[in-house]
């Protein structure tokens, strides 16, 4: 891939990740997740891929919130976030990248 296009794609993904981290944390806040967990949630960009990241020591608590326990209902955030935003965003990144490549004459 052309270096300029590659850098542009990474930049788009990085900016989108920042915006999505804010969206994700807002969703977790509205779902009444504890604040110490909310601040650990981060959407990261690696190449053109986006994924949710959090420290391993929070895994058990996050899964209890996300899927519930025998005595508590689930308060899903990660699954809803993925379904609503991540899929659309990957498409957004791909389309932006395509237009960028088209404008640079890559397909000529």
């Amino acid at each position: 891939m052309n270096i300029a296009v590659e850098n542009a794609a990474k930049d788009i993904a990085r900016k989108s990740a920042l915006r999505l981290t804010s969206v994700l944390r807002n969703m977790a806040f509205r779902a009444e997740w504890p604040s110490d967990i909310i601040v650990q949630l981060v959407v990261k960009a690696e190449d053109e891929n986006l994924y949710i990241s959090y420290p391993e020591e929070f895994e058990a608590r996050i899964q209890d919130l996300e899927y519930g326990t025998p005595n508590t209902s689930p308060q899903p955030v990660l699954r809803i976030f993925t379904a609503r935003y991540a899929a659309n965003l990957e498409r957004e990144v791909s389309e932006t990248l395509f237009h960028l490549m088209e404008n640079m004459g890559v397909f000529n």
Partner: protein
Amino acid sequence: MSFILSEDAALKNYLQGLTVSDEKAPVRPVKVYFGYPDVEITAQTYPYVIIELIDIRAASERQTSGMMIDNDYRGTVAPVAGTAYRYEVPLPYDLTYQVTAYSRHPRHDRALLYQLQNKFPSQYGSLRVPNELNTEVAYRTMFLDGFLKRDMIEDGRRLFRTVYTVRVISEMTPSVAVTATQTVQTVEINRITTNIPTGLTAVSHLTQGD
């Protein structure tokens, strides 16, 4: 039944008939609950399955526009000769459910795993949803979006948990939304009531604000 209620009922109905077996009972039925019932109930009824509606998403990417015409108003009104109904194309939705299976016995856990994997076969699932008049049936596409095993120790005892995230394709007609926001104006009650407790008086008619 209408949007959401129909899918709820259809999913619960779909999960009826699950059974497990062990040395004490050759056929042990698996109960299905909505939400989380009292601990006292579930403690006596392992294994069991819980259904939770966890997300309702308007699927705008599938939205089309236009008018539809039929003679039973999408299966909600009994057809009358010479009468037709005209309405907008329904709004597409994705309903996401969490289906969680709980059991204490590893054999029950495996038996439930097998049965539920067959119930939710990745992208090839379908859910039978009858219309309100019960005259026609739609098979809604049902996707298995996620599967998770979350076994744990609870009060010193093993608890096997399997979590399925299931997405059901649905739709809502605009008229349903209008109906749902209508205010009840009059409540009719049975005026031929017998066995009225001493000290109380039979009420013949109530209107809003009474």
